[in-house]
Structure formats: structure tokens, C-alpha cells
């Protein structure tokens, strides 16, 4: 289930599948342009999604990922950006651009 996604579209497709599992709906009902909270995604799911990203994509993300980037499209774009930055050797994490510890 956690096959590593690559480019932007794959990321989006993978995110749709993950979210569908969390909110207990078929993937076809998940619109990537709709805010995740409207599907009933709560903080437990949101944190778990971060763990999925870490495990499947190899990116460390903020636990607030799903609130900072509220739709699947937003998250996919954000992650694609991190992946691209990773390839240019700037570190695969969004921890450092937030000014947090």
C-alpha cells in the first residue's frame, strides 16, 4: 500500500489513496482540490499522514502539513517542491524554512 510515489501526479494519486483510507471513503470520492477537513480528516489522521510521507517518500514534514497545505493538490505541490529541492542537495525537509527549532 505504501509504494513510493515519484513525480507530482504520482504523489497526488498516492495521497488520495491514503486520505481515502483514513476517512473511510472510496478514492473516487476524494477531490484533490477540496479541503481535507471537509472529508472529516482530524489531527490524528493528519499526523499519521505525515508519518506515511516520511516512510514512503522519505521526506520529513511539519506535523501541521495538512493545515498548512489544506488540499491534496497543495500537499502534492509542496512535497514535489521538497523532492526537487532534495535533488539539488538542499535537504529533504521543510523543518528549516519555518524558523522552528
Amino acid at each position: 500500500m505504501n509504494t513510493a510515489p515519484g513525480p507530482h501526479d504520482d504523489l497526488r494519486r498516492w495521497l488520495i489513496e491514503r486520505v481515502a483510507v483514513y476517512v473511510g471513503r472510496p478514492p473516487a470520492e476524494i477531490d484533490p482540490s477540496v479541503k481535507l477537513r471537509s472529508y472529516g480528516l482530524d489531527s490524528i489522521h493528519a499526523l499519521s499522514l505525515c508519518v506515511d510521507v516520511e516512510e514512503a517518500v522519505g521526506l520529513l514534514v511539519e506535523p501541521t502539513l495538512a493545515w498548512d497545505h489544506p488540499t491534496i493538490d497543495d500537499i502534492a505541490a509542496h512535497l514535489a517542491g521538497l523532492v526537487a529541492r532534495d535533488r539539488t542537495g538542499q535537504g529533504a525537509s521543510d523543518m528549516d524554512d519555518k524558523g522552528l527549532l
Partner: protein
Amino acid sequence: MTDFVAHIRARLADDREFVFVRDDGSPVRLPFTELDRRARATAVWLAGRGLTDQPVLLLYPAGLDFTVAFLGCLYARVPAIPAPLPDTGAAHGSRVRTLMRDAGARLVLTDSGHVSELSAFSACVADHAAADPDAWTPPAMTGATIAYLQYTSGSTSDPRGVEVSHGNLLHNLELFRLLARDRPVRRLAGWLPHYHDMGLVGLQLQALHTGADLVFMSPASFVARPVRWLELISRYGADWTVSPDFGYAWCTRRITDEQLAGLDLSSLTMAVSGAEPIRAGTLAEFERRFAPAGFRPTAWNPGYGLAECTLMVTCVPQGQGVTVRRFDPSALERHRAVPAPEGTPLVACGPVSGLDLRIVEPDGSRSLADGEIGEIWVSGPSVALGYRGRPAETRATFRAGDSAQHGRWLRTGDLGFLLDGQLYVTGRIKDVIIVNGRNLYPQDLEEAAARANPAAGRSAAFGVRRADGGEHVVVVQEMRRGQGDLGETADRVMDQVTREFGIPLSLMLVARGAVRQTTSGKLRRRHMRELFLSGTLTPLHAELEPALNDLLETVA
């Protein structure tokens, strides 16, 4: 023995320990004797600052530093207030200030890793290394001495600090201990936060009280990878754990076959479930899923309790197993428990033992018979002293009874019934909403919702039960003036509440005057809930969660 400190100090043993397991699985160990030494040093430090009897706020991450600080406060007769570390953001900072003001606390203690980010509250680190533990002399304490203040978690607008005494603790922990019957607990394992009554009393203080090891981890670590909790039980051979229903359900959902293969839960003789409604389905699914790992159905201990009664009111004792009975759903709504073979399953929460309990007509007029649903009233030495600095609320909640002057009953605000010697909990008349084992207070939700909408009039927040048994938050908010783009307004309100509380919600914007109050100006949240569920509210704009749409369709 009338105080908790004397009780636990009489049981200090070199071979008992607290073990905090970090995210990477590495343990940090603290034997009871060293814990006691650091607590004495902390107490000396606190007394040296003249803090005896002065409440102190404890803002700590999960870990042993909290335990040392909390115990240090107990040893120094300083009422500790365990609270969650605030996230960054104004709303969270204001919660800390509200708690401090309400409790009259002048000091915040934290660990060295957080002292700079909490500098706005002049937080400091209790330096136990700088004080001499042997300089400690126990302050005078009795059963009536306040041990700590348990704030109903997360409350920004109407905080209530439950004053728990040493006598309350000793009595309730003894009830808890007796649940194990002839198999005394040797090692507890868990992940619940230390500022949650079940994490504080059910794990930390219980371990100290019974002289058992405690192996624990951070709540965030559990949520991220729930298998870690069961790995603690496996690896350390724990025999007792506690969790709300959500924790067991989360394990069943998230733990993979591969992870399951490495688990051994055969050491577990007590798995307490409490702090939120217990779903029969959660127990059955967990049992099925983890039977191959050695989990035994007789290990379940469903229970019921609340911070106002220290922790526990009733709980099924060790080895007795789960009783699930089915009741006619429409009769339940009319406050009657009528057995029905295909009806709603309810999990029995154990017999009444060591406390007095009765079921009372919600208007307080009369006691009800077995099988009749009413408010659960409790009386006995576990019932806390009251709400700090709130005599009127204390009288209304803690001093109910036939004589208004000398009432000895705690009104729990929960609904239930007794049948064949066990308590069943069916609902609530108080306004609190419980999501994933966490208490949410409607005042806080309403305040956040109003902050996000300058044109808001009154707001009313309440919980509704979804078909899957979980609770869902609904906010009904009046538009006071200027309509603007209602979709945009709704979006802003929902973003705010979701971000602040980490929950999805449904929102209904309504015309001015649609949110009802009593003549004395109190919000009628339960009435608003009924109007909402019956579809009689006229929305200007509504954003309803899909699961809720389904629910409203069934009602209609």
C-alpha cells in the same frame, strides 16, 4: 497513613523504576529511589522560594522530568497544575495565562529544552541538582491537603480546576489497585499524556501507589506509530495498560500484519478502557486482531470515571471479562433501557464498589430504579474537594442532595443506568464533547469560531454522535450584520477551529436570534442540538461533514 507522600515513600524500592521510552526505542530509566531523591531536592528548591501552598503550573513534554517536578510539588505541599505545553500561537499562550489567573499561580516550571520558548511566562527549571535532598523535611499534610489541581483540559474561556486531595488520591488509587484482585500489578505500560487524568492518576500515580514499574512513551509517538505502544507491552512484559477507546481502535486500524507478527501480548492481564464512550465494536475488533499475538478477551476492564472523582468511578475487575448487552435504540432515546436482541450494544462499566452511586432523574427530583436512565450521582472519599475558587459551581456540582446545605453527592453530568449490578453509560447532559479521548469544551470552540468571524453574533457548539459511534463537532453561528460572502466566512471559521483544535467540524450560519438562550442569558446548547438534528434550523449557509449528512438523512 493519610497522605500520598508518606504512602509512596513507605514503598520505595530499588528494583522499581520509571522507564520513558524515546521515539527511537531507547529507554531512559529512573529507579524509584532516585526519583524520590530528585523529588526531595525539587521540594527543597520550591520551599526555598516560598512556594508552599502556592499553585505552580507544570508545562512539560512527555518524560521523566515531569514526574520529578510533579512529585517535587507533592513533597513540598505545592499544588501542581499539569497542563499541555502550549503550541506556538496566541490562542495557546492565552490558555496558559487563563490557567495561571484562575488558579492564582505565579510560577511556571518546565524543562531546560522549553524554558526559552516559555520565557513569556517567566518559566523556570526546577534545579534539583542545586538543592540538597537531605535538607527536605516533610511538610504537615493530612488527607484533606490539596495534592494537585486537575484542570479540565483545553479550557480557554471557562477553566475549572478540580482540587484533588491526598485522601482522594489514596482512596481512588486503592480502588484502582483492588481491580487486579489476586494478581497484583507489576508493570504498567502506556502513552497517555500526563496532564490527562487517566495518564496522571491511571499510569504515573498508580505505579507509585502500588509499587509497580511504569514504562511509558509520548502520546505523539503513539499516534504516529501505534504499534510502539503494543511493543512496549511486548518488550517489557507489561501486565496492565490504560487507554481511551480511541487508542485500541487506532491500533486495530493501523497495525500491519508484519508488525503484528512481532508482538506478544500474553503478559497483559488488565487492559483498562475509559475516559470516553466504549464501543463494543472496538473491543471485539481489537480482540480478533490481536488474539494471534496472545491478547486474551478476559484482559478487558471497561470503566467509567471523571476528574471530579479523581479518576475512577466504576471498572470491571481483572478476569471478569466484558459484558455487552443490547437495548432498544428508540427506548434508549426515551431514557429507558429495554433489552432487545438486535438493539444497540452497550458495554458494562463494572460494579459499584467503594463508592456510593445512584441514578437520579436529571432534574434531581428522585432516585431511579434499575434499568431506568438518569444522571449518575457519586459520593465517597474519592470525590474531589471542588472547583478551585468557584464556590457556586462547587455547590452545584459537588454538593447535590436532598438537603441543599449538606448535599454529599457529585453530579457527574453523565447519563446511565444500573442493571444486574453493573453501570452502563448512555450519554451526557453536560456540554463537553469528547473526540479521540480528548475533552473539548463548547465555550472554547465558540470563542475560536467567533474570533474568525467579525460579523458573528452568538455561537453554539455541541457534539453529535455519528453512525460509527464517534462524536462530531457542530457549530451554529449567528450572522449579526452584513452578509458578505457566506461561503468565505464559513471557510474562515472552519479553518480557525480545525487548526486550533485539530478536528473537523460542521458549521451552520444562521440569522440573528436563531441561537437560543435562557432568560438569564445562558446558551441552550442541548436545545440547539435538538433543533439541528431535527432539521428545524434554517441555515443562511451550511457546511456539513459527509458523515453528518448521512446521519441527518436517517433522522429525516
